[in-house]
């Protein structure tokens, strides 16, 4: 399949998911249809490597009253070979979706995702990659939180329960990935998003766009990536595109030595 054709298919897949998500009574047949559409959205990548632009097949809508599925564990594979130095699309999409705005290098602004530029001083090799909450299976932030506000959903998403966060910031001390921010001041009403509450005096971080996942969409960053470098899916489902891809190619996690079992993997790390 040509790359252009694959992109068209991917676009079509996204539109279908959006439409499907708006109807609560989505039956299994339509889910199957979506899986097929998503599977068709394959993009040929350089060097014989292929990734899906989206894992819509895994993120199916659930009704609000339905409990989360503990059999799932959401994760992501980021193809860092596709990630260019100047590209900020994933960051911009996250800002737009979740309503945060950060001045570069501001010590106080909230940041859910950032591009990190890494250079090997011994060789001069340079690369750029997005870093956000790694949605660890053994999250230090959850371990240290005194009230349980820093929590892990049944489907593996790590997030902050804004209602019981007391703002002690111990999770920020414990997170190895600098993934959390403290809301240092009031956020203007017009910037607030209902689905991404950020209250002055509380800690906040990437929640994998849980509000999107729960209605069958994929995280905003993954959807916005023009290179299709972010493959989102269910790590526990051996048949998910993500799991299949992870079986095929070597992948790496940031600070794997810490044993936090990150849900985010990278095709290449510096």
């Amino acid at each position, binding site marked *: 399949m040509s790359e252009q054709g694959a992109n068209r298919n991917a676009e079509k897949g996204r539109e279908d998911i959006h439409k499907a998500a708006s109807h609560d009574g989505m039956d299994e047949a339509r889910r199957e249809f979506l899986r097929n559409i998503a599977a068709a959205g394959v993009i040929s990548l350089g060097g014989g490597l292929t990734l899906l632009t989206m894992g819509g097949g895994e993120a199916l809508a659930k009704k609000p009253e339905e409990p989360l599925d503990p059999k799932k564990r959401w994760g992501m594979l980021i193809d860092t070979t596709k990630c260019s130095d100047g590209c900020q699309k994933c960051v911009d999409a996250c800002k737009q979706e979740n309503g945060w705005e*950060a001045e*570069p*290098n501001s*010590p*106080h*602004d909230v*940041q859910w995702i*950032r*591009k*990190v*530029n*890494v*250079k*090997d*001083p*011994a060789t001069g090799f340079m690369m750029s990659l997005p*870093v956000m909450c790694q949605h660890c299976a053994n999250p*230090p932030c*959850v*371990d*240290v*939180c*005194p*009230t*349980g506000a820093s929590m892990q959903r049944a489907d593996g998403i790590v997030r902050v329960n804004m209602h*019981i*966060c*007391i*703002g*002690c*910031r*111990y999770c*920020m*001390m*414990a*997170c*190895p*990935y*600098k993934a*959390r*921010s*403290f*809301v*240092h*001041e*009031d956020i203007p009403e017009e910037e607030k998003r209902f689905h991404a509450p950020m*209250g*002055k*005096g*509380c*800690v906040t971080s990437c929640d994998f766009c849980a509000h999107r996942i729960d209605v069958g969409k994929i995280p905003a960053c993954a959807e916005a990536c023009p290179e299709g470098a972010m493959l989102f899916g269910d790590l526990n489902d051996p048949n998910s595109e993500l799991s299949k891809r992870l079986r095929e190619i070597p992948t790496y996690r*940031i*600070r794997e030595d*810490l044993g936090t079992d990150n849900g985010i993997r990278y095709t290449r*790390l*510096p």
Partner: protein
Amino acid sequence: MKKRFHYEYLQASVGYYTALIGMGVLALIGVAAAYYMEHHGHVVTGMTNEIVWGMPHVFAVFLIIAASGVLNVASIGTVFGKTPYKPLGRLSAVMAAAVLAGGLMILVLDLGRPDRLIVAMTKYNFKSIFAWNIYLYNGFFAVVLLYLYTQMSQDFRVRRYYTAAGTLAFLWRLILTTGTGSIFGWLVARQPYDLAVFAPMFIALSFSFGLAVFILLMVALMKGDERPLGHGLVNRMGRLLGVFVAAAAYFTVVWWLTDLYAAEHRPMVGYLFFSGNVYSWLYWLGFIGLGTIAPLFLVFSRSARSSVKPVVTASLLTVLGGISLVYFIIIGGQSYPLVLFPGKQVSSTYNDGAFYAYAPSMPEILLGLGGMAVAVAIVLVASKTLRILPTTLADADVDPHLATGEVAQMKKAA
């Protein structure tokens, strides 16, 4: 024959009320500073997304460490049976609770949401050392009050549990400081922390901070109320302070020596301890120079045998050196960036890879001083309303051996 000590309330004097009002004003300013921080958000402080714990935590952690050490004075009398310390037990217990209360006040008022304190008291994550510390702090108050009750009760059926309560309080304080040290020692992601030595190091620090704080307040109360205070007793406490100060410094040396041995930590040790930045100065000049070596000279000096001044100066320096070290641990430790990619150079719009700057703001300092003032104010009020301060601490009353200079002479002969 067992000597019975008499304890009496502080006298109402101009000096007493001046001190109490002064502490009250400082405490109110501290609370006002906290309100200012809460109203505007932490953006008005020097704290950032990198230096998430700032000056309030320096004061709070110093006081919390010191609180458990203040109780040692009582333990030395009760658990270890040292006669000269026995009349100090009541003051020690009250002061320990007061200093802990001051520290906790700072910690709570610095929370992003202090209005949710009830959440911290009702929702516990038992995997969190922070949550365990909440139990340990509350338990400390309970155990210390029980200990005080066994000391002050007129009922012999209660007093007979005095040793048991004192032993429980001593064990509890050891566990409490282990918990405080582990808040840092268990932070696996941060290179400057992540060491088991933090728990025993904090215990050693508590011994020295606590005794120094106790000596300062004890001397102030006794002198302020014009009660006899023996040089022999103060000298003896000063020499013990010397041992504690040396032990605390020993653990900090073990800390950086251990990290220096591991190649991965060498850049961190170089940055914090040997780069000549503000943190290196705080450690070497503040803690080692002023807070360790100077007190050691002072407490073992000849003049310390005939005057309380060298020991009081040594205690003051121990407190200053202690605050320097806590600042070094908390702020310095956070200023070293998290290492996401070992051995690589990193940069981002979120300050990855940078050494983080921090400038303490006035509200933070005022909140910290407010907490200290609350601790002193509680001691002042308690000394005025409870019989906790002995009428005399003259050497002849405390321990006849001290009065005759027997101990000093024996040492000289040896």
